[in-house]
């Protein structure tokens, strides 16, 4: 089985319907476990105290913001080059979810920043590039809504998405390239994580939970989008058939 197998919308509908309850259950269980580990099992940090627990939401949200956008950019490239019908749908369905994750990362970061740094917000490279990502998501969604014809809207949005993709490496490496107030990477870095296992395990659990949650919502949104397109197509077909039957009489 390869990806072509899933690129067929009808087959996707059947397949997605079958796995949805499993993914949703797994997401709920993992998020529950992650929250329990993060709020009750993980010890307070040696200098941040209990404020460290904000990280269990902040880091997964920020990662998902980047991950979802990377997925959207890949789907947009596939949609532009190979014109797979589902790639378009996947990218469109992902955007609001990614925007929410990015927003959550910005808000939780701000809540953490005030007690720890002494400022709600600073214009350093990491925070600014993350804010740009939120605007990219919003712009992408607005573009889909601004253009009437879905084929043209999809093409324009896909190009915007790919242009915006340059922000992703900038966000990831901003803390290495420039002096920032935001701390450097703790998990994905050369030399291994700098987080003690008792804090790292709840964090990784939450990241898995967030990813499963994303998959759940993505499947629901993609099915809804496919259904909406089908309704649109049927409606157009009916209007067309009525016009063709009416046409001889009118003529």
């Amino acid at each position, binding site marked *: 089985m390869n990806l072509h197998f899933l690129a067929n919308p009808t087959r996707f509908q059947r397949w997605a319907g079958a796995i949805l309850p499993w993914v949703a259950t797994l997401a709920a269980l993992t998020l529950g476990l992650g929250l329990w580990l993060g709020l009750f099992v993980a*010890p*307070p*940090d*040696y*200098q*941040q105290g209990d404020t*460290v627990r904000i*990280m269990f939401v902040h880091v997964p949200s920020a990662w998902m913001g980047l991950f979802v956008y990377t997925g959207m950019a890949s789907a947009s*490239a596939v949609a*532009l*080059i*190979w014109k797979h019908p589902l790639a378009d749908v996947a990218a469109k369905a992902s955007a609001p979810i990614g925007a929410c994750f990015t927003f959550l990362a910005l808000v939780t970061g701000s809540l953490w920043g005030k*007690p*720890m*740094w*002494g*400022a709600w917000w*600073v*214009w*350093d*490279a990491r925070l600014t590039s993350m804010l740009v990502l939120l605007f990219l998501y919003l712009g992408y969604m607005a573009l889909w809504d601004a253009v009437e014809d879905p084929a043209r809207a999809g093409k324009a949005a896909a190009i915007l998405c*790919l*242009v915006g*993709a*340059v922000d992703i490496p*900038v966000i990831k490496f901003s803390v290495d*390239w*420039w*002096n*920032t*107030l935001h*701390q*450097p*990477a*703790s998990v994905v*870095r050369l030399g291994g994580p*700098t*987080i*003690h296992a*008792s*804090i*790292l395990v709840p964090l990784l659990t939450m990241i898995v939970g967030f990813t499963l949650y994303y998959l759940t919502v993505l499947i629901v949104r993609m099915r809804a989008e496919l259904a909406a397109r089908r309704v649109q197509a049927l409606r157009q077909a009916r209007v067309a058939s009525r016009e063709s039957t009416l046409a001889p009489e009118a003529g």
Partner: protein
Amino acid sequence: MTRKERRLLVLGASMTALGLATALVLLAFRDNLVFFYSPTELVEMQVPEGRRVRIGGLVEERSVERRGDTVVFRVTDTATTTPVTYIGILPDLFREGQGVVIEGALQQDGTFRAASVLAKHDESYMPREVADALKKQGYWQPGERK
């Protein structure tokens, strides 16, 4: 060449050009993208007195002194040290050995008058017992904060 291959080629070329353009822009604006300068850079750049800049470094050990409302301390990048004066509330993480970012301006007497002090958090997270154990065994590396 099929149409798919042509589209792939066009997309690949545009993304490469876009990436290159971004890299050049970021390189050109490098100095403005920096959130703070080190005390050494502050000296090297010969920033004029009174111009608002941000400097970052570690609060030097045994340098914090409170004189009434004013806090006096020194910020170091281990090569150069800048004396700082500040009036106001310090963040929770502020202490000797901690990384800080200070916004303010150089005064005539060579001290740095801070308008705001932000604490910089590092990338290490651990429970208190582990931190204490590491310190006790002398595993705490010189560059790391205490």
